[in-house]
């Protein structure tokens, strides 16, 4: 994986030099996006992870749409805590519900929370970061002190206070994770804006009368799309983990509605661990595999979009 990374970097800089040389001569050179796509396709683990993630998400969404609405809580008291079998591939839980069915339904909740919470955090982070970096001055100062403040409260403490405040449920978990995790994105975007706003193309756009809104969103922001995509991917992984932690601690998705976090939690009593370890094993494995896949995708995207970044 790492050998391909260095090769990717070398060929990337080679490509860039070639690109610069040929830019004035020929038109069939590679665009930056094509270059990025080539580098990403060379990153085998990221590619496998992307395929895994897409298949996983499609399976989970389609399968859970086909299930009857009562599937999550359908129980069979004759089959309590049954080990994995052909009829119940992931076994059954304390109430005799099928763990596989609940893993699929819980997966829909966990992945939805992960994707939407990351979307919120990236949107807030991008807006705050661009405004802060573009305008500078007092506004920048105030916004960055808010960032400092939110980063000084340990994340899980902040999330639990906000979750306790807004109440339990999918919607609040999404909002809470979204508003607790935008700070890193805003710092990255701000740093990018600080250097980009000095560039000639911004000067040129301003000189032909572009307004601030257009300068920010049409001229500068598209140039920061690479770090935004990488941050968004990694935020999805972190949001899935965070949802699991919050639900595990009892402030997130409430049973009987399944989420991967609260499923691990309900299988985590000492007696259940020893008698029915599959109750926490399968949802736990699903969190790990999903987060791992998303992290690999993020890693591949970072190498593809930003060949100069370390780690």
């Amino acid at each position, binding site marked *: 994986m790492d050998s391909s990374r260095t090769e990717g970097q070398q060929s990337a800089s080679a490509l860039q030099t070639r690109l610069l040389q040929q830019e004035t001569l020929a038109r069939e050179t590679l665009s930056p996006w094509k270059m990025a796509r080539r580098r990403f396709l060379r990153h085998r683990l990221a590619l496998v992870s992307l395929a895994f993630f897409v298949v996983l998400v499609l399976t989970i969404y389609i399968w859970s749409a086909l299930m009857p609405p009562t599937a999550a809580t359908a129980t069979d008291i004759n089959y309590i805590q049954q080990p994995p079998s052909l009829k119940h591939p992931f076994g059954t839980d304390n109430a005799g519900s099928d763990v596989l069915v609940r893993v699929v339904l819980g997966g829909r909740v966990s992945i939805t929370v992960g994707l939407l919470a990351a979307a919120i955090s990236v949107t807030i982070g991008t807006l705050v970061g661009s405004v802060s970096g573009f305008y500078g001055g007092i506004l920048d100062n105030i916004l960055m002190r808010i960032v400092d403040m939110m980063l000084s*409260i*340990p994340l899980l403490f902040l999330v639990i*206070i906000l979750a306790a*405040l807004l109440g339990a449920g999918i919607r609040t978990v999404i909002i809470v994770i979204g508003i607790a995790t935008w700070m890193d994105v805003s710092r990255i975007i701000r740093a990018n804006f600080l250097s980009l706003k000095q560039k000639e193309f911004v000067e040129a756009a301003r000189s032909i009368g572009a307004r601030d809104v257009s300068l920010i969103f049409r001229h500068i922001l598209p140039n920061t799309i690479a770090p935004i995509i990488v941050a968004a991917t990694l935020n999805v992984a972190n949001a899935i983990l965070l949802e699991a932690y919050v639900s595990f601690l009892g402030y997130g998705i409430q049973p009987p509605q399944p989420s991967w976090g609260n499923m691990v939690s309900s299988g*985590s009593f000492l007696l259940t661990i020893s008698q029915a370890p599959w109750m926490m094993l399968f949802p736990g494995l699903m*969190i790990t595999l999903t987060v791992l896949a998303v*992290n690999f995708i993020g890693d591949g995207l970072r190498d593809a979009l930003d060949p100069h970044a370390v780690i």
Partner: protein
Amino acid sequence: MARYVIRRILQAVPLLIAITVILYYLIFQIGSPIAHLLQNPHVTQQDIARVKHLYGLDQPLWKQYLVWVWNTVHGNWGYSFVTHQPVMTLIFSRLGNTMILMITAFVLTLVIAIPVGLISALKQYSVFDYVATGASFIFYSLPVFFLGFMLIWVFSLQLDQAGLPHLPSGQMYDIREGPSMGQTVQHVILPALTIALISAAYYARYLRASMLEVLGQDYIRTARSKGLRESVIVARHALKNAALPLVTITFIQIAFLFSGAVVTETIFAWPGMGQLFIQSADAVDYPTLMGILTIASALVIIFNLLADIAYAYLDPRIKYT
């Protein structure tokens, strides 16, 4: 340098004050600590008014906050609504336990991460490097609680069922044995390992990258061409410089350790600050919540400050004004 430190300290104070204002406001929106009295039909309106007056809950919020600040600065952190102990006593009885867990976890992290990161960097693209990098990705993606339960399952339950010596799955000591040094050591292993394996994954990746960068520098080639032994080059020339970014990460990791402690202490019934936080949040015990959050935020701010100062001190190329 002295001016830089003073300026940073002066900036930290208003930051902490602003944090307490916001937290105080947020916590009061969660609910009332006397909610159980409001629902009780046997409690009269007069009683409720009396209790509210007793705790100062009848005052406007800003006044309550100012009283809280005044008392806190003077060493009175209020009384828990649950145990009625002074918050300061309550927190400091738990803070020590959290420190035991964190320091053990931190030492274990270094013991695992430094050799792994070093060997990965020195033997880049070897089998060891691939295994270590793969493992670090996996551990980095593991939820803390899942890893904790897996460790309990294997090292407490499976070993116990097999009749082998096994590790305890929770608490700080066996009730039959009573608290002792030996008991604490036995009981801290699994929770500390849970935190350490995940943060070691993070550290080892950083150390590897940082070592690889340093090993490619000109002065390492100079040292080699002088004929220095490789062990001296690695230990004296490379590791020292490669460890520099790790110092910053170490201090910044303190915030992660707090979050990790909340989950880990809940899993292993470790009587620390994290467990106290969850218990207080469940009961809307606002004096205890405010105490914990203020201390935790203050520690994060102090450690971030120490990170910057340590970095400036260790790397003379950085000039601060």
